[in-house]
């Protein structure tokens, strides 16, 4: 039966109607994954050198054993945020003559197919072979590897168990995350105890007393069964689809209401963002980006030219991260928009207004960077204008070419659904045009940062002044493509 499930799963993968990935995207993604793998393999092979460098006074094995538990704590936290629950795929099998245990076992086992279960092997096995196997023999190394597998197994099912619980009660995830952070803070902030010492006590003893491997083994098996029983008890549609029965309320935005139709459209889009998982996580990521400057501005030697990037991203990340998938967010109701009385120019005006509102909010929020000098605020302001004038129009020009619907209910992290060539092409003008303007002016004016900024500002202001012209052009362009766009959105 399990092999049948796997065959179905493979068919589902290959036959997906809108896999959201074209060949170009797959190549880029493939390169990205290869790069990450290469980094992990490199870190694994040179782990002993890295440990020596960071803890020069300790023996490598001592520091290795000390780091392991920390790694798994961090892994648990990341798993809770990023690992996907394998859920709805069993729906068509529930009513068939298939034993529940078979289904649940399948669900549980496929949960092991996660990057998180491979990563520690790549990171730690080279070290175990290079150092522990050489010093204590192959048997000890094997016990070590087995112990790590068991802890990974335990972490895997613990994270899924917490996530399953969290799908009924959102607080569970927050409480679990906060407790993990408190455990970490107890060590690094308050120095109440040392996780490293604890980790060393266990893994150090493992070398002398291999029977200790039973501890993670028993824990792992227990967690697996806990998870197994929990799924079995909850193998019902309503619990699998995690339907929340919260009372939804009707919301109004009084300020937007005054702006008439365009305001209504923006109001709807704000609701789209706040009430759906993927766009709202894109918005949260944009908030996170406000701290982007802290990484760069602390460095006094950072060239001014780099600050253009930082400024552009901090006030414009929403335009880029949300705008790149436009109008795919609204794919579900696109037919309705097309036959409705909404003129496409108003539709575009609403997009401009939304971008302007969010960028303005971001620009205001990043003014405290004035701490690093008022010049920073000036750069922010120029790039804020640039975002409003140039980047919005570029993003909307590419939106006219995007035919991929976005599944709103999935999370945003590592979600490539709906990513196509459009998104890749879009990044080129966004990243290059500011420099194509800045660098020549900078050199012509005798290495003058101010001249470069002035050139950016002038172009941005002209572009803002020409908004109505862009709207006409974009609407005419869209009318030529709307059938293809609507067709693409219909094949979800």
């Amino acid at each position, binding site marked *: 039966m399990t092999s049948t499930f796997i065959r179905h799963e493979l068919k589902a993968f290959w036959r997906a109607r809108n896999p959201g990935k074209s060949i170009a995207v797959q190549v880029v993604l493939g390169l990205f994954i290869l790069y990450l793998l290469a980094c992990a393999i490199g870190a694994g092979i040179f782990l002993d050198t890295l440990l020596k460098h960071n803890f020069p006074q300790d023996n490598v094995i001592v520091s290795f054993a000390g780091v392991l538990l920390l790694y798994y704590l961090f892994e648990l936290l990341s798993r809770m945020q990023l690992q996907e629950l394998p859920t709805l795929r069993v729906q068509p099998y529930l009513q068939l003559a298939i034993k529940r245990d078979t289904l649940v076992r399948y669900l549980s086992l496929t949960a092991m197919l996660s990057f998180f279960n491979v990563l520690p092997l790549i990171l730690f096995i080279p070290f175990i072979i290079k150092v522990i196997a050489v010093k204590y023999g192959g048997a000890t190394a094997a016990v070590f590897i087995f112990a790590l597998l068991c802890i990974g197994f335990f972490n895997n099912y613990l994270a899924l168990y917490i996530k399953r619980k969290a799908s009924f009660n959102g607080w569970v995830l927050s409480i679990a995350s906060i407790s993990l952070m408190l455990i970490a803070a107890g060590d690094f902030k308050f120095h109440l105890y040392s996780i490293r010492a604890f980790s060393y006590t266990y893994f150090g003893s493992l070398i002398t007393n291999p029977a200790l491997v039973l501890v993670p083994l028993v824990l792992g098996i227990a967690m697996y069964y806990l998870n197994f029983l929990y799924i079995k008890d909850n193998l019902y549609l309503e619990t699998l689809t995690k*339907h929340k029965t919260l*009372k*939804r*309320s*009707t*919301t109004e935005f009084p300020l937007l209401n005054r702006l008439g*139709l365009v305001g*209504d459209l923006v109001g*709807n889009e704000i*609701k*789209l963002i706040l*009430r*759906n998982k993927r766009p709202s996580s894109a918005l949260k990521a944009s908030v996170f980006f406000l701290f982007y400057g802290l990484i760069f501005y602390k460095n006094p030697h950072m060239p001014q030219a780099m600050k253009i990037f930082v400024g552009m991203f901090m006030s414009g990340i929403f335009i880029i991260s949300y705008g790149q998938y436009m109008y795919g967010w609204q794919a*579900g*109701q*696109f*037919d*309705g928009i*097309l*036959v*409705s*009385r*909404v*003129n496409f120019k108003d539709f575009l005006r609403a997009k401009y207004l939304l971008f302007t509102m969010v960028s303005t909010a971001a620009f205001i929020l990043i003014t405290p960077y004035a701490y690093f000098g008022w010049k920073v605020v000036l750069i922010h302001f120029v790039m804020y204008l640039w975002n409003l004038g140039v980047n919005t129009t570029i993003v909307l020009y590419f939106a006219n070419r995007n035919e991929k619907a976005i599944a*709103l209910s999935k999370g945003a992290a590592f979600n490539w659904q709906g990513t196509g060539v459009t998104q890749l092409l879009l990044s080129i003008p966004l990243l290059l045009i500011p420099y194509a303007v800045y660098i020549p002016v900078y050199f012509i004016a005798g290495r003058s940062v101010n001249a470069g900024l002035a050139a950016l500002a002038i172009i941005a202001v002209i572009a803002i002044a020409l908004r109505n012209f862009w709207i006409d052009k974009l609407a005419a362009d869209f*009318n030529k493509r709307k*059938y293809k766009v*609507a*067709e693409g959105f*219909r094949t979800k």
Partner: protein
Amino acid sequence: MIEIKDLKKVYNNVLVVNVPQLSIRQGESVGLVGNNGAGKTTLFRMMLDLIRPESGSVTSKGENVAGGETWKTYTASYLDEGFLIDYLTPEEYFYFIGGLYGKNRTDVDAFLASMSDFFAGEIIGKGKYIRDLSKGNQAKVGVASCMLQDSELLMLDEPFANIDPTTQFRLKNMLKEANSKGVTTLVSSHDLNHITDVCDRILLMEKGRIIKDIATTSSTLEELEQYFAIGPQAITETAEGPIESSTPAIDPEENH
């Protein structure tokens, strides 16, 4: 009101819609019947400028629908859930649609009160987003939003599917009432009883073509039942022409 000329749509070299000529006069109530794959929804979508025909044109009040904007001001339509904004509550959606047609909240509230029978207490004030409603209740929201628009042309694709018998009867009365006020209605359905009850003119589609165009009489239901009991002949028409030559005979008198 609506004129269709030489309208053709091809998918994968199969002619899915092929309507040489069709005209719908103002105030008519037209029913569209036909088995799955007959091309009803595709025809609707072309009439709403959602897909581009291979050839031919649809005009509404003399204006070409493709690329036009004026027809949208008097045409209300609901084909599927893709017409609803599913992350809004029904109230928010009605206020939005009402706003498009110059109605303020009081107008919309009055309208919603008049629809309370149709909604049967399932839609308003339930604190649910449209996406959390059942299919039938979503269809009710779609149909009601069409009624809210005070349109001159009403197009509904299978409105009787998914809704309960009581609502089906209420919907029939609403359609008849709208038609008596001069609204042109175009409704597709698989329910022959309902469609012959509501519509004065029936179009029967088969493999993309309108093979019967008849005024509803007491014998129409029987005639349609007879047709569907036997089922259409298996012919596939390619873009170049029919594969088999066994095209069903069209009575020239009926095909006006």
